[in-house]
């Protein structure tokens, strides 16, 4: 059984079709780059997987079950924006994750928060945007989830933070889980990808292991990306 099985997925925003019969299967134990230019449906696909969009056509199965309580319990989602209440502090946010997620490693989250030199009583609203993003990544990666869905985790951050994010992702990744990561910074991230999925016109244009892709095209993923979306 595949970790994710998507068949004929369609979604519209008003009159605009975002996903037009998308088919995709993801297996366990891979880091998958979900790539494509703006508006191609990467974020929409991720939102559907995580239960944020429920008005779609087609079939989406995660771990053999439709999107619901079970799928949400095994997916760890990092959206493109910060979602904690500003009045909450690190300690209460940890308490919340502990309450809702059985696979949340509180000790690991606390250690990683300490690495960021965060005071556990500091209000999240008083942190810089970059710090809030790092904290959110710490929480998301402190789960022993089967699938990590990371939407633009390195969007708009400085190179040092980018390195921190990449290191965190790689350190927390285990072979029992998969990571679906969308990014525009293909050149910076492609070395961690096992597989690349290119979206075009609401469908999967390419779904290939990066080693095979490099061997067949003679180009890096970034070069091929530029070629495809030129």
């Amino acid at each position: 059984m595949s970790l994710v099985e998507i068949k004929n997925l369609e979604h519209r925003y008003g009159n605009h079709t975002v996903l037009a019969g998308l088919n995709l299967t993801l297996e366990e134990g891979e880091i998958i780059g979900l790539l494509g230019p703006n508006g191609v449906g990467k974020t929409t696909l991720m939102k559907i997987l995580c239960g944020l969009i429920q008005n779609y056509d087609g079939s989406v199965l995660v771990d053999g079950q439709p999107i619901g309580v079970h799928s949400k319990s095994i997916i760890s989602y990092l959206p493109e924006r910060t979602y904690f209440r500003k009045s909450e502090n690190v300690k209460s946010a940890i308490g919340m994750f502990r309450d809702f997620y059985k696979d949340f490693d509180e000790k690991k989250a606390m250690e990683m928060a300490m690495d960021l030199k965060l005071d556990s009583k500091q209000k999240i609203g008083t942190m810089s945007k970059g710090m809030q993003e790092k904290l959110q990544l710490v929480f998301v990666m402190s789960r022993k989830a089967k699938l990590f869905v990371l939407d633009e985790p390195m969007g708009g951050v400085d190179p040092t933070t980018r390195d921190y994010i990449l290191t965190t992702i790689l350190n927390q990744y285990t072979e029992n889980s998969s990571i679906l990561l969308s990014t525009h910074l293909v050149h910076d991230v492609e070395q961690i990808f096992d597989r690349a999925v290119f979206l075009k016109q609401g469908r999967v244009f390419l779904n290939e292991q990066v080693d095979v892709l490099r061997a067949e095209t003679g180009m890096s993923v970034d070069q091929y990306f530029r070629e495809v979306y030129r």
Partner: protein
Amino acid sequence: MFGKVMKQELRANSLLYGVASAIALLFAFATVMNRTRGTDVSYLVKAPLLITGCTVAIVVLVMLFLIHTALRYQKSMYGNEGYLTFSLPVSSVELVTGKYAAAALWGIIVCVLCALLCFSILYGAVAPSGTELFWAEVGKVWAMDGIRSSMVLIAVSLTLSMLETVAILYLAITLAHLPFIRKGNGIFALIFFFGISFAEGKVMELIPSLSTEYIEQTMTAILDKADLDLFFQGIRSFLLPAAISTVVMSVVYLAVTILLARKYTSIQ
């Protein structure tokens, strides 16, 4: 998970309601203490200010509760926080009912505080020399079965109405965030809120004991005869069906909200 959703909601609102409740209690306490400790002269100076404070506190508490409940629901479901809310391993039923239960608990606390403030106003309006007479009158009124049960029914009906308003707010906000509504969610939420309230009023007209005509006739007859027992008997004749219909409608509104949240959620 219902309990965990409720716990998170209670925690999210605790500071605001804690401060508001403390201020309301302070006014109630000051008004009562002014009566207990003050002489008739000092009482006359402070009482009007404290009674005004209590009255304002009632209005502020109710407005704060309704506005904050609406904003909290909107933010936690359809604002940035919605990205977390909808990715939690929680069913739509647990999500909406958990939030509603927390809001209902705060609503009941607000109603209890308002009742306390009302009592403080009544008590505070009597001069210190009239204390014995005040308690004697309270005891006399409370001893009358019909009046006591009517007063309890009035208090329960008001609380249920406030909780029904919360259910209408939830439904209106959920409707205003349906996928086909792209912009102006706040305006649409208001339109839906008043639309649903208006429609409910029209539906209630179909129930004989809740029709405007019946209530007007009953009240006119009561006032003509100037009989206190008859007055409360008349009030009970339409408050009881009103309370039942309020509970039924609240359940219907919540059920529709859950259904919409389950089928048509689209966090943008």
